[in-house]
């Protein structure tokens, strides 16, 4: 009897839930994936990787967030696809002869989405917010190039008016640097430099609080080509063409739907089913398939990121530069990019990827087995004899595993040494790296802005992301002198010397330079991307 009641109740409950949710579904989304939009409206459906953590430019750190911030905000200057600096909110700017003072003249028609003008004070107060210690913005250090910024952040300076940020009048904004930074305008494409709507943020919880609802659609204010229409977590973010954006006449697409799709495999299926026009990425295993069957949809672009193996030079046997070099010279990179990766990646025999603002590395090392064996023998391990136990760490990902296995095999065959592989979940691996609890590990570096400086700054002695225990006083000295160089030619000449020092010491083994792979529907027009994979949305168009 009891059971009958119980099972009956269960069935009723199931039916009820079904009925209720069924009803709820009928009022489902107006922007459903397959629904047909009004004919005139151009809607781009874009797979945007993971669910964004936030839309606040000063808080976010990831690439999916960057795509969104580019739609909703605009800084003083931006980059065109050829990496030329072009006007954003600033219509023109002057740089003082010593390269220290940047004066930006803001355009008269730059507006927030609530209709208010974007003023120099907005930029000033945004910088002030970014540097508030209590806000604890992770990218605050991007602004430390400016006089007093670091001191203000660290509490050595309490009066923000003493820093190098100045609003001379409503339309003139001035920044004074503490040392020349020839890459400043490129660096200003980073979110950390974007303006934020101070009045709105104040209204919804204050300038020192991260956990505020100001980026919810009902509260959101931005100054970019698009405005936030709706945000359903893990479902969809709808960006609509902004009616207040100064350059709205050139914005081509009416609406961008950002679909957070975590799995590249799922995303690829959605593309095939016609749910997406543009994907976030493409799984390695699919590249050959698209080459064969649908090359028009496959898009491969150069990407300013280097893949390398990092030594811990404080640990044996990698305290010996001969061992480090021997390992580096005994890898067949061409074979890795051709047989393992297969997406047009470039073998890396230098530190800086090609095409970073005209910097071309002159100091490539040559793969050379004879030399590698000679170096290893000289270090006391002829034919790999007595070579100590070495473990290679990588984060858990299929791609890293196959690369590691290929290299393990090359070292076994070419040098007679045996290494073991082990993998760790991302955060455990990152923790091991930053605490230098490894012998040899897989690593990579993506530029924050386009300038060779980012690849050299990284290896300063004791730098926060160096993590090799390697350092060289001459290298450090050159790094600081480079910024004071009178022009880029002189600066790049210094970088060449630094790159030579670096590659001679080989604290990391460069392996390859990335490409960025994605699927683009033939309907998508004018899609171009910079070597940082930036693609300002306002240029992208969609054929009917």
């Amino acid at each position, binding site marked *: 009897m009891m*059971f009958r009641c119980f099972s009956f109740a*269960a069935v009723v409950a199931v039916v009820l839930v079904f009925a209720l949710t069924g009803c709820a579904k009928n009022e489902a*989304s107006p922007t459903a994936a397959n629904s047909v939009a009004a004919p005139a409206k151009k809607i781009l459906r874009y797979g945007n990787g993971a669910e964004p953590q936030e839309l606040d430019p000063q808080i976010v750190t990831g690439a999916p967030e960057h795509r969104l911030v580019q739609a909703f905000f605009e800084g003083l200057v931006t980059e065109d696809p050829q990496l030329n600096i072009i006007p954003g909110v600033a219509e023109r700017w002057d740089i003082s002869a010593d390269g220290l003072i940047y004066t930006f003249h803001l355009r008269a028609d730059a507006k927030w989405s609530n209709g208010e003008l974007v003023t120099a004070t907005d930029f000033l107060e945004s910088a002030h917010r970014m540097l508030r210690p209590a806000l604890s913005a992770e990218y605050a*250090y991007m602004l430390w190039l400016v006089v007093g910024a670091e001191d203000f952040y660290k509490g050595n300076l309490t009066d923000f008016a003493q820093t190098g940020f100045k609003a001379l009048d409503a339309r003139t904004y001035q920044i004074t640097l503490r040392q020349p930074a020839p890459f400043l305008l490129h660096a200003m494409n980073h979110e950390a430099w974007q303006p934020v709507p101070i009045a709105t943020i104040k209204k919804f919880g204050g300038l020192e609080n991260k956990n505020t609802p100001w980026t919810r659609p009902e509260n959101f204010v931005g100054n970019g080509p698009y405005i936030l229409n709706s945000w359903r977590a893990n*479902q969809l973010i709808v960006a609509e063409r902004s009616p207040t954006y100064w350059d709205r006449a050139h914005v081509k697409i009416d609406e961008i739907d950002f679909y*957070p799709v975590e*799995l590249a495999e799922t995303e690829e299926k959605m593309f095939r*089913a016609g*749910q997406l026009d543009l994907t976030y990425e493409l799984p390695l295993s699919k590249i050959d398939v698209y080459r064969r069957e649908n090359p028009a949809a496959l898009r491969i672009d150069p990407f300013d990121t280097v893949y390398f193996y990092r030594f811990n030079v404080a640990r044996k046997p990698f305290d010996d530069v001969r061992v480090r070099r021997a390992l580096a010279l005994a890898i067949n990179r061409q074979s890795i990019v051709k047989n393992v990766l297969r997406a047009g990646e470039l073998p890396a025999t230098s530190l800086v990827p090609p095409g970073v603002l005209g910097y071309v590395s002159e100091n490539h090392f040559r793969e050379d087995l004879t030399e590698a064996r000679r170096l290893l023998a000289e270090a006391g391990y002829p034919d790999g004899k007595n070579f100590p136990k070495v473990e290679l760490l990588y984060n858990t990902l299929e791609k890293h595993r196959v690369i590691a296995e290929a290299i393990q095999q090359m070292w076994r065959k070419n040098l007679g040494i045996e290494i073991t592989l082990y993998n760790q979940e991302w955060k455990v691996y990152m923790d091991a790296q930053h605490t230098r609890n490894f012998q040899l590990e897989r690593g*990579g570096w993506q530029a924050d802005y386009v300038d060779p400086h980012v690849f050299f700054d990284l290896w300063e002695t004791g730098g926060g992301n160096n993590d090799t225990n390697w350092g060289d006083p001459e290298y450090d000295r050159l790094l600081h002198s480079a910024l004071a160089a009178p022009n880029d030619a002189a600066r790049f000449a210094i970088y060449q010397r630094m790159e030579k020092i670096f590659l001679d010491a080989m604290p990391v083994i460069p392996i390859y330079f990335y490409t960025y792979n994605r699927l683009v529907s033939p309907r998508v027009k004018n899609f171009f991307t910079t070597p940082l994979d930036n693609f300002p949305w306002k240029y992208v168009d969609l054929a009917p």
Partner: protein
Amino acid sequence: MLRFITSRFLQSLLALFLVITATFFMVRFVPGGPFTAEKAVTPEILKNLEAHYGLNKPLWRQYLDYLGSLARGDLGPSFKYPNRTVNEILGDKLPVSAELGAESLAVALVLGIGLGTLAAIRRNTWIDYVASGFGMTGISIPTFVVGPLLVLALAIKAGWFNASGWYTPADRVLPCLVLGLAYAAPISRLTRGGLLEILHQDFIRTARAKGASEFRVVTRHALRGGLLPVVSFLGPATAGILTGSFVIETIFQVPGVGREFVNSAFNRDYTLVLGTVILYAALIMALNLAVDVAQAWMNPKVRLE
């Protein structure tokens, strides 16, 4: 009876408290934290970040603070998603998981009981073999294989459904089908076993002797008792469907709790990890408590033990 329920409830509360405590300290001792990233923040910034989230206080203090806010029903802000609270995230996603679970369970029950019954009344015929074969296959093939196969066939080739998403009513079909199939398999086996036992009993023979049709014998007399094992399986199955839907939620981009449960651990989103663990633990305990109470009601021996 009331005393029994009270004592079981208190036991559950104690267990929940232990789960919270263990989880709180375990996530803290895992290497890497919420701010561990490829681009390491400077020490000053890390210090401010920790201060912002109260991580600079001694661990016992943080633990007490957490219990304090928990008592007020506040699960805290998420580390990963700063503009959302854990309460909000769970409140947003639990209904989705519940819907996915309920609809999958319905699929599982209809398919499982139907096939199991057919197999039992046509015992040792091809129908039985097909149904049992389905049961074995369903138990053996994991959802992450069935899912993509169905997507390939029904979404990409046939074009009937979206490949992924949770937007239209049609989007519910594939995920619920895949998750439902996984549970239909054991249910069909349980139904078959339970029915076979009942069909041999005297009262069934009596019913047949009285001239009742075979349909009536099965639906009115046999199923009632034959489904007992299925009913006791429903408790753990419901919990399993709710907590185990991570794979389905990821493959089909369903915005449910299952993904948060796994991703929050990867993100070291301390508050969200705790929030999902508490939610799941409470759900499982509530279901177990319900089963205990039901059993005690039916069987006085359990009550006395």
